[in-house]
């Protein structure tokens, strides 16, 4: 009996294994049904929807300004990007031009958020690959970013800082000094991360030449963001399209060569340094002036006017109770989020509530490439690829 058991060729047998939805390496509630032959992945199916909360449907029952905190909670790591996609879409629908200072402030917070998002990614992914101390170092810097968010907006996450028309308030005194200290430190920290990982034999052998997908296949699958750039395609919406103040800044788009997991790591780390450069330029060139548009139809009047001006009080009352109406129309507005093209589709039917808010979430679309990244490789490489894919399941399921 035992002999027969041992003589069986146990590697040629295909076994279906369920991973998740509650598995620490799936970065959220993602379930993977994996067909394994020995340790080699032969087929894979991601099963999603475990954190679907119907945010898009709920948005249809909220006036336009109340949608902002809802959409922030989709992709909960890049909340500023969610806000910008939505606010930008509504601004384009009502053809509201935002002031120059608001554009710069938005860029500062978006790029801080990009660094924050990449730090969360780097910490957790390195943790998956066994580099435990990376998590503490990354979260140390992440905490400084959250402190900056708290200083300027009052909240560490889900700040509701962007408004239709600009930002809710100007940056406080002392913010610039604190931000500059952070910007001075960050490139040094990035070098330290690289010193820890770039010559780490375990990290290198687990990331180099694993999870390769060709550039053409990635484009077919609609993959955008660092994953696409790691395969050598310099596609970045910040460069391609003219939005906010990005055309005014000098920054590079890091690209990889073969598109393996190591390239994905290098591209994201290089992006952090580029984001630091963008923020420095935005701080240096930060123009004076209003931080929110002066259109009382869409923007709350300043608090100080409420006690002196009857008209302001009426505007305030109308905006807070019914909200503003948006004429019929539809718009698709896409920005470059830390994970790729984040698009927001808003359909307005003339009432004070949107008829449809849809997010083209980059994690959702990029997840389709996971099968191509994993098939034919070892199951351990699959975990590495999932980390490098960086899906945020809140964004996938919405």
């Amino acid at each position: 009996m035992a002999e027969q058991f041992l003589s069986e060729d146990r590697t040629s047998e295909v076994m279906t294994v369920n991973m998740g939805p509650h598995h620490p390496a799936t970065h959220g509630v993602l379930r993977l049904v994996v067909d394994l032959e020995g340790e080699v992945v032969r087929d894979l199916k991601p099963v999603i929807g475990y954190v679907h909360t119907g945010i898009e449907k709920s948005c249809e029952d909220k006036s336009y300004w109340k949608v902002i905190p809802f959409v922030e909670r989709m992709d909960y790591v890049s909340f500023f990007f969610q806000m910008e996609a939505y606010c930008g879409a509504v601004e384009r629908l009502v053809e509201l031009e935002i002031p120059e200072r608001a554009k710069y402030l938005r860029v500062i917070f978006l790029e801080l958020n990009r660094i924050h998002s990449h730090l969360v990614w780097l910490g957790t992914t390195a943790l998956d690959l066994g580099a435990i101390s990376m998590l503490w170092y990354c979260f140390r810097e992440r905490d400084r970013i959250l402190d900056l968010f708290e200083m300027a907006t009052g909240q560490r996450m889900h700040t509701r800082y962007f408004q239709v028309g600009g930002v809710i308030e100007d940056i406080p005194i002392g913010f610039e000094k604190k931000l500059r200290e952070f910007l001075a430190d960050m490139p040094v920290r990035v070098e330290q991360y690289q010193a820890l990982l770039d010559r780490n034999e375990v990290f290198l052998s687990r990331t180099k030449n694993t999870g390769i997908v060709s550039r053409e296949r990635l484009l077919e699958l609609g993959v955008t963001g660092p994953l696409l750039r790691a395969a050598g395609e310099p596609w970045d919406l910040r460069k391609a399209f003219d939005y906010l103040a990005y055309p005014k800044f000098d920054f590079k788009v890091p690209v990889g060569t073969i598109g393996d997991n190591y390239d994905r790591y290098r591209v994201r780390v290089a992006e952090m340094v580029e984001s630091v450069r963008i923020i420095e330029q935005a701080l240096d060139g930060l123009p004076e002036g209003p931080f929110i548009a002066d259109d009382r139809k869409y923007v709350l009047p300043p608090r100080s006017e409420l006690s002196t001006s009857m008209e302001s009080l009426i505007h305030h009352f109308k905006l807070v109770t019914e909200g503003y109406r948006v004429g019929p129309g539809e718009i698709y507005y896409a920005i470059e989020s830390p994970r790729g093209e984040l698009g927001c589709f808003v359909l307005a039917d003339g009432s004070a509530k949107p008829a449809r808010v849809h997010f083209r979430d980059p994690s959702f679309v990029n997840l389709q490439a996971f099968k191509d990244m994993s098939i034919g490789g070892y199951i351990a490489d699959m975990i590495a690829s999932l980390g490098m894919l960086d899906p945020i399941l809140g964004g996938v399921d919405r």
Partner: protein
Amino acid sequence: MPDAPGLELIRGEIEAAHPGAVLDTGFAQGRAVLSIDPIHVLPVLTWLRDAPGQGYRFLSSLHAADYLPGEPRFAVHYELLNRDRVERIRVKALLADPGADSLPEIDSCVEMFPTAEFQEREVFDFFGIVFKGHPDLTRILLPEDYVGWPQRRDFPVGGEPVTFTYNEKNYG
């Protein structure tokens, strides 16, 4: 983006190749919109991708909208992108509501654009629009046994009762 005259040129050329395919064109918020008959969706998408001088090879997003009480009721939106010229064009396939007993149907574009696989499943999941030829058209975000198409406008917000195991056991 193709400007308004450019859009009319595109319309004219599609009309020559596929008569009756284009129902309307629109130009709003700087975005060209091509409203088409859903029967012709694959030929139009293929033409926009392959015809010389077009090259809309990247499908940025596929989503749907319910225009109730407008007619036709549904539209599937294809946000196409030409990455060389950095131009976007929106193709809107207008779908009438066939009534309560059957579901609106449209051809699947998964073979042309593999990226549409998840997105078509999502549209099916929330609007009940059937994509003919999709390899695995099942619910993606909602549970498999879910009944109803929640993103339709006549599906009420809060139409989903909140059930907790505790409530079910003690009061259900």
